[in-house]
């Protein structure tokens, strides 16, 4: 079985089509048929029996993709399932997600990979592409069966949640994965430096009396993995970068033609460690929120392309688990339903990136770097479309999230930029 597709033709009329994959930015129509893009651009007639969406004044983009999401299933269905996560995604305008493998049991074999993929298809919201684990059980000891998992539908590999502590294992993974043309994604964190820390090490951690995680804990693994990618010719993708130093190191790597790509989460380009003040566990995640200097460097990194992708690291947690002393609370916040609003407010409207760059970072490049279908409205491509209004104001109300998770620091915040219609496989799966 495959992801469900729409039975009727769908015509999106009069929107501003922004598709960097075709170098397109013009007002026009898009026609979707049989789960594919039938025509894109210009003035198209309305076929008989077609559903019509009036996109006047709105932006029509290739469906957004988020390659870093935690769906929690199998194992923690109490905090999120593939279905609720996929629903949350489309509520945020996101048409496809890659689910991280730190599930219970860990997604380190073809059975779990198939299961996750099938759950996504059954739910019929955003497409779900499973990540596989790099090591068996994510224990960092032996390589997992990458080829088998690729066969079952895994698109990338990571031990996210944790770093791969052994440089030797990371080297092997990068070499081995080359044959299958899949990225190895690393959660960069030196555990000996980070151990016991619950927020950024700096003036706020000194003020609150909490042990901090220094920026170097991330940067040490960033440079290590870039060097290993250089040695092996493999593709290293660096997850959720959070420091100025990391951006500079990635720039260094790209300048030398090393196959390194990077992503940043919307919270890291919008919030600083100040959000933790008062011991707010809804601002606690790993890597932590850092300083204004880091935020600025990350924003610049997105602008100049050093950082390729805008993701969320959507990580739902139960209310009870977050309702705890700060040091004990689990790391992570949800993000699928606020990503577009945050990215528009903090990057687009501050003139740091253009609309085209926004769509590129949230769609085209996601597909390109992870070799996924979609990310383009060229004829014959997937009928995944995000229709959004970059100027629409809205206020975040976590109680209305489609996700089971409510752990966000953005409750009550007002954003400018909202997804209005989300279409997957030619089916309208969400309207605001």
């Amino acid at each position, binding site marked *: 079985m495959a992801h469900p597709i729409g039975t009727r033709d769908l015509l999106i009329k009069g929107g501003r089509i922004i598709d960097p994959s075709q170098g397109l930015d013009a007002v026009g129509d898009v026609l979707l048929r049989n789960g594919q893009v039938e025509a894109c651009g210009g003035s198209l007639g309305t076929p008989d029996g077609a559903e019509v969406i009036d996109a006047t004044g709105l932006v029509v983009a290739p469906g957004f993709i988020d390659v870093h999401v935690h769906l929690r299933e199998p194992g923690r269905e109490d905090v999120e399932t593939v279905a609720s996560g996929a629903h949350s995604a489309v509520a945020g305008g996101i048409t496809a997600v890659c689910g991280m493998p730190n599930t219970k049991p860990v997604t380190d074999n073809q059975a779990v990979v198939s299961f996750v993929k099938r759950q996504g298809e059954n739910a019929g919201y955003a497409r779900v592409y499973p990540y596989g684990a790099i090591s068996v059980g994510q224990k960092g000891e032996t390589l997992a069966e990458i080829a088998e998992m690729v066969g079952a539908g895994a698109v990338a590999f990571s031990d996210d949640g944790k770093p791969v502590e052994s440089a030797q294992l990371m080297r092997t993974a990068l070499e081995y994965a080359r044959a299958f043309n899949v990225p190895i994604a690393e959660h960069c964190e030196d555990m000996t430096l980070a151990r016991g820390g619950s927020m950024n090490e700096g003036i706020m951690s*000194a003020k609150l*009396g*909490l*042990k901090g995680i220094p920026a170097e804990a991330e940067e040490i693994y960033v440079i290590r993995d870039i060097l290993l990618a250089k040695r092996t010719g493999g593709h290293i993708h660096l997850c959720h970068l959070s420091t100025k130093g990391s951006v500079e190191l990635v720039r260094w790597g790209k300048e030398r033609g090393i196959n390194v790509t990077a992503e940043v989460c919307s919270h890291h380009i919008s919030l600083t460690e100040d959000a933790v003040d008062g*011991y707010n566990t809804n601002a606690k995640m790993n890597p932590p929120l850092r300083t204004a200097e880091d935020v600025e460097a990350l924003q610049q990194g997105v602008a100049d392309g050093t950082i390729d992708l805008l993701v969320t690291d959507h990580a739902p947690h139960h209310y009870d688990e977050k*309702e*705890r*002393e700060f*040091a*004990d609370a689990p790391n992570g916040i949800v993000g699928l339903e606020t990503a577009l609003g945050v990215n528009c407010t903090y990057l687009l409207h501050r003139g740091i990136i253009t609309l085209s760059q926004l769509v590129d970072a949230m769609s085209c490049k996601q597909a390109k770097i992870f070799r996924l279908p979609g990310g383009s409205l060229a004829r014959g491509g997937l009928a995944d479309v995000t229709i959004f209004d970059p100027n629409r104001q809205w206020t975040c109300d976590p109680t209305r999230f489609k996700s089971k998770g409510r752990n966000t620091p953005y409750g009550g915040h007002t954003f400018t930029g909202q997804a209005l219609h989300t279409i997957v496989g030619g089916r309208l799966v969400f309207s605001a």
Partner: protein
Amino acid sequence: MPGPLGKDLLGLAPLSADQIRLVLDTAVPFREISERTIKKVPTLRGATIVNLFFEASTRTRISFEFAEKRLSADTVNVAAAGSSVSKGETLVDTARNLEAMKIDMVVIRHSASGAARFLAERIESNVINAGDGTNEHPTQGLLDMLTLRDRFGDLAGRKICIVGDVLHSRVARSNIWGLTKLGAEVAVCGPRSLLPNAIEEMGVTVFDRIEQAIEWADALNVLRLQLERMQAGYIPSLREYNRVFGVTSARLEQAPRDLLILHPGPMNRGVEIDSDVADGPHSVILDQVTNGVAVRMAVLYLLAGGKPELAEAAKKGNA
């Protein structure tokens, strides 16, 4: 209606200089009560106070207990299990259960920074922080300041150096916040691996050698060095710590003025402080203990607010 300190005492960082002075001023007459034959006043009669200690502590708990009992309050001691994660009830549930038993005040000591605030935000009773993780220990800071003020009069311009493991010390932090608010100059002296990175940004001078601190200071507040720090690799050995940072009488003899020596206790004699210093003429360590009860009585008294509707009715006589 909250009293002049608000609903809770969570730390010295949130207090104003005036509030701190109020506590110190109020503590003075409370000292006298501990000198009486009948060491009791009826002020908090009928109030129920729970000493909720998640970390073992004899001296602080006893000091609070004396303070509570000398104010005629009813006290209950609860020694609770470690953190929420490890075992037993969550802090939230513990709080709610206590509240359901209609208590008036909670004195809490916990291993997580922010735990006192966490509790205070969730229950209506007054919450007093008796030490939360590596964040603050406000009553210790207050009694240290009272002890210094007794000897110096005014704290403005006085030079106080905190010696030892400042990184892990909530006593140090409360002292830093409190002393700087009252205009004292604060410095720290200890191995750099045991000082917080952002210490200078807290308005504090750093001395790398104890001799420099002794040369500069009017008083030293000597912190206990815990064995675990050596085991965790922050310093090579206790022996080396004593040789480089130990407060010894030989070093004190070089001091240009008569230094006061404070220590929050319990002391590791021969490690951070030598016995002859601890028991010597410069030491005010026992005064700290006496002041501890008085300061805690003052805090309990000032937190016990009134009821606004009755206050209106009572607003007639001036006798």
